[in-house]
């Protein structure tokens, strides 16, 4: 197949690098790739904000932004300019240095993690042998930045928000990593590119060879995505910035460009973790069907990314916010056991002969605990229609 279109960015990079002096070439190529990644994902951020606002508007049947530009698609530009020219207010009591460093500490890891995401064939910045570990390690840095932001602004709401965020992130990081561990076990490597390669090809019914179409993979994907939602503090897990409870959580005291940075960092984290989900479970940049192979790989990556983002928007528009105890119960009483059992399921799957038996066994090992744990979680709660006192 003619992969000129597929490899267009790679060739472009080589071509540009060719002009640099020999000694500098690796450096230059790295710079170019980094610039490309930053540009692409920053603009994706811009697009996503407006999409999210419009989508939420539709879900809550109102118009989203529709004034600036055609269909309000220039809204992000306007917001950006506004954020840039706004006065940067810093509370007097605030801890100046930390208060200044917090947004950077949020954005930098958010960009760093893209280094190991294969966004297309031969399109990964650094192919670490422990790439996934790198992702999680750097991702862990965000918690600290959240704490910095919340603590430094000397505001009880922001401190509360920070504490909530840290508690939530730590509790959900465990299921996140555990559900990813299944993939590492099966592939036998932590390298993202190897993981993607392992999902190449198609098996019966032309179904792609992705991990999401195995019992453990499916369960793992769902767990991973729930944990990712919590990791990125998105609704229904958006307690840390619950506007109705603690005004905006840990960035009450941020205004202007610092706030914009936080916003950017949050969305970048969202893209990144979705990208990891795609890499681990959704076959990375592989095409879903054999007859679509000709479409360039990077397209597939971004298409899947868009789909996941749409799902996130949808969830945010649909689900109400959890309570703190519900959050913790869900993390420790449901997610964690499910993830652990899922690891065992993956092991069983790995050691059983291919065939329908292992499908049955795997499905049983996923569904049984799900039912038991779910009932255990629901124990002593009776679900009934909520009666509104003042609404109706």
């Amino acid at each position, binding site marked *: 197949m003619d992969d000129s279109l597929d490899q267009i960015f790679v060739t472009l990079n080589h071509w540009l690098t060719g002009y640099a002096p020999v000694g500098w070439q690796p450096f230059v190529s790295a710079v170019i790739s980094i610039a490309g990644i930053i540009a692409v994902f920053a603009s994706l951020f811009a697009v996503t904000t407006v999409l999210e606002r419009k989508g939420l508007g539709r879900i809550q049947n109102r118009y989203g932004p529709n004034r600036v530009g055609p269909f309000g698609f220039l809204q992000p530009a306007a917001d950006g300019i506004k954020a840039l020219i706004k006065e940067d207010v810093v509370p007097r009591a605030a801890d100046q240095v930390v208060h200044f460093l917090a947004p950077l500490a949020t954005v930098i890891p958010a960009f760093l993690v893209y280094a190991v995401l294969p966004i297309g064939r031969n399109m990964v910045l650094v192919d670490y042998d422990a790439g996934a570990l790198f992702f999680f390690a750097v991702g862990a840095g965000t918690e600290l930045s959240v704490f910095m932001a919340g603590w430094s602004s000397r505001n009880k709401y922001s401190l509360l928000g920070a504490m909530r965020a840290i508690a939530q992130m730590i509790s959900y990081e465990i299921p996140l990593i555990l559900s990813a561990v299944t993939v590492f076990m099966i592939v036998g490597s932590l390298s993202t590119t190897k993981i993607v390669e392992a999902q190449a090809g198609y098996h019966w019914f032309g179904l792609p060879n992705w991990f999401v179409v195995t019992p453990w993979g499916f369960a793992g994907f769902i767990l991973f995505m729930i944990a990712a939602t919590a990791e990125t503090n998105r609704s229904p897990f958006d307690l840390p910035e619950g506007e109705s409870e603690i005004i905006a959580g840990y960035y009450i005291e941020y205004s202007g460009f610092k706030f914009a940075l936080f916003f950017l960092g949050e969305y970048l984290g969202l893209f990144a973790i979705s990208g990891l989900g795609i890499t681990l479970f959704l076959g990375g940049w592989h095409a879903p069907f054999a007859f679509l192979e000709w479409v360039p790989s990077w397209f597939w990556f971004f298409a899947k990314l868009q789909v996941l983002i749409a799902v996130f928007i949808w969830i945010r528009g649909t689900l109400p916010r959890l309570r703190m105890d519900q959050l913790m119960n869900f993390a420790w009483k449901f997610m964690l056991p499910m993830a652990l059992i899922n690891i065992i399921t993956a092991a069983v799957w790995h050691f059983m002969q291919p065939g329908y038996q292992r499908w049955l066994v795997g499905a049983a090992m996923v569904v049984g605990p799900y039912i*038991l744990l779910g*009932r*255990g979680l629901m*124990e*002593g709660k009776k679900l009934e229609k909520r009666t509104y006192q003042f609404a109706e």
Partner: protein
Amino acid sequence: MPWIVKNLWLIPVLPMLAAGLSALMPRRQRTASAALAIGSMVISFLLAVCAFTHVLQGGEGIREVFNFNWFQLGDGGWLQLGWVLDSLTAVMLVMVTFVGTLIFIYSTGYMSHDENFTRFFTFLSLFAGAMLGVIIANSLLLLFICWELVGLTSYLLIGFWYHKPSAAAAAKKAFITTRIGDVALLLGMVWLYSRSGTLLFYKDGLGCLEHDSLVKLVAQTTSMGIAVSTGIGLLIFAGAVGKSGQVPLHVWLPDAMEGPTPVSALIHAATMVAAGVFLVARVYPLMSAGGGTTPQLEVVTWIGAITAIFAATIAVAQNDIKRILAYSTVSQLGYMMMGLGVGGVAVGMFHLITHAFFKALLFMGAGSVIHGCHEEQDISRMGGLRKHMPVTFATYAVGMLALAGVIPFAGFWSKDAILHSAHGWVSHIPFYLGAAGALLTAFYMTRQVFYVFFGDYRLHLGKATISEQRTVDHAGVAAKDHPHDELTGKPHESPLTMTAPFMILAVFAFALGFLGTPAWPWFQKFLGGEAEAGFTPSIISLMVISSVIVFVGIGIGWWLYGRKPVEQSEQPDPLQAMWPDIFELLRRKYFIDEVYENTIIAFNAWWSRACDWMDFWVWNGGVQLVTYVVVGLSWVNRFCDEYVVNLGFDEVCKRLRLGGGGLSRLQNGRVQNYLRVIGIALAVLALLFIWGCKPS
């Protein structure tokens, strides 16, 4: 190796798995845990049926074993475990799983109101699993492990209502009493291992129950000229005595009635007490090693016969419906032991199987009666229940006839087989004992049935007895069950989940006997291989005799209790009216408990008191003496001290104290000081190290 043999372990493991899972379940998951337990039992039953059919196709004397290495011993040899599939295993498997399943189903109905439903089923499944493990074990060690598991779970189940002190005491009693036997069993096991070098029963010629090692065991003799095989056999039999409640270790069995009735049914019918008999049957080759009637077999026979008559007599005078059944179980177990002793595996096992069915039936019936009469257990306060609970009555009657051994019910054939082989035995006394036992059995069962089901309902008139506070105790059942007043509530028939199982059992209790009639001794062939077929005159005469005995028993029972039914629950038992002291003696179980109380325990107490006395007078006195001497001396010393030594030492002490004070200032409780010292030490050590080993 056929699939079923390789996977025989599934049969016990499944219920254990179910137990583990339902142990994890939250309390609310009643249906789930029950479904889990019953489902696993059913699967085990199907597997057992597979095994059974496999054995059937295998023909006579088929025995397939599967051994595996457990762990390596110090001397490089491997300790092996394994399971065996032969006719004995197959029969027991089918029986236990079938009866167990029915009992499980029954207990969903019986325990439906208990708040610890899930815990109950956890224990129940573990119990059944352990018993199945005992059955399939091909290694005395594995058997012993499961055996102990059975003991443990029986403890848990008998003490299930642990908030009743009586239940807790009964559980403890059962545990400890059986433990006495288990120690003997352990000793026997060790001895066997030391002599035959293996604990596997069958290992193509090398097992400890196979010809070579048996020959070896018989050849060796211990002191007093007893063959080693005899010693080991007796020790193992002691374990069986403990487990299946033979005299003198029978005391725990009746108290085990404190547990929930399904548990009693399970213990008495299928699992626990059967384990003892099964053990003897399993090691029968060892028991009969050397051929003929070996001493150990004689012991077995005598113990069995004595137990049979002994327990039967006690059962005559009991008033607690479950206790009567308990003692009947003890005596039936005696029959089984006797059968093993006189007639070999087939005879004993046949009675074990039939007894399992009708005893389970009887216990379920009793449970249904108790349930229906609002936790009343005193038969003198029941009566007339045949009108209120017809199904229970009908099935119970079947069970009673089977137990009493009325032709052609199952019990008749098996008991008759035992009596017949006892008749042909070296000594005839066991036979007469057995016959008398049969008479008594028929008698007390008749008595019980007349008390419970005939006459009219007496519960509401009459004073409260033990049973009320029992009702209060586990109000879990009664209160929810009958909100209205308990004593005036009419008895009621039990739900279908409870009645259905004993309808099924009733069929078996009736029909099972035809597998082993003298006309067609299929069962004996299947188990033992040899069986004398056909109705020889001796058999005919024996059958006539025993039937006569049975009918005489029933007749006496009717004469005493059925002719004019009891009206008042206070009015004394007719027997009591005739021979009060004998009746009292029987009712108090020959004072066995009291005897133990006053011999062993009393001796223990006396001994400790004696030790105390010794302590107080002899040792303490000596010590006192020494003290006085010492005190006297010390006066002298003091004198010297005061004026000779002190003046010198005080100075030293002062100095020392000062120094100590100075030193103690180092210990100022500050972490960082200590840390500082550590740092310095590190530096010094490093320097020493550098200078110590110079790179040459």
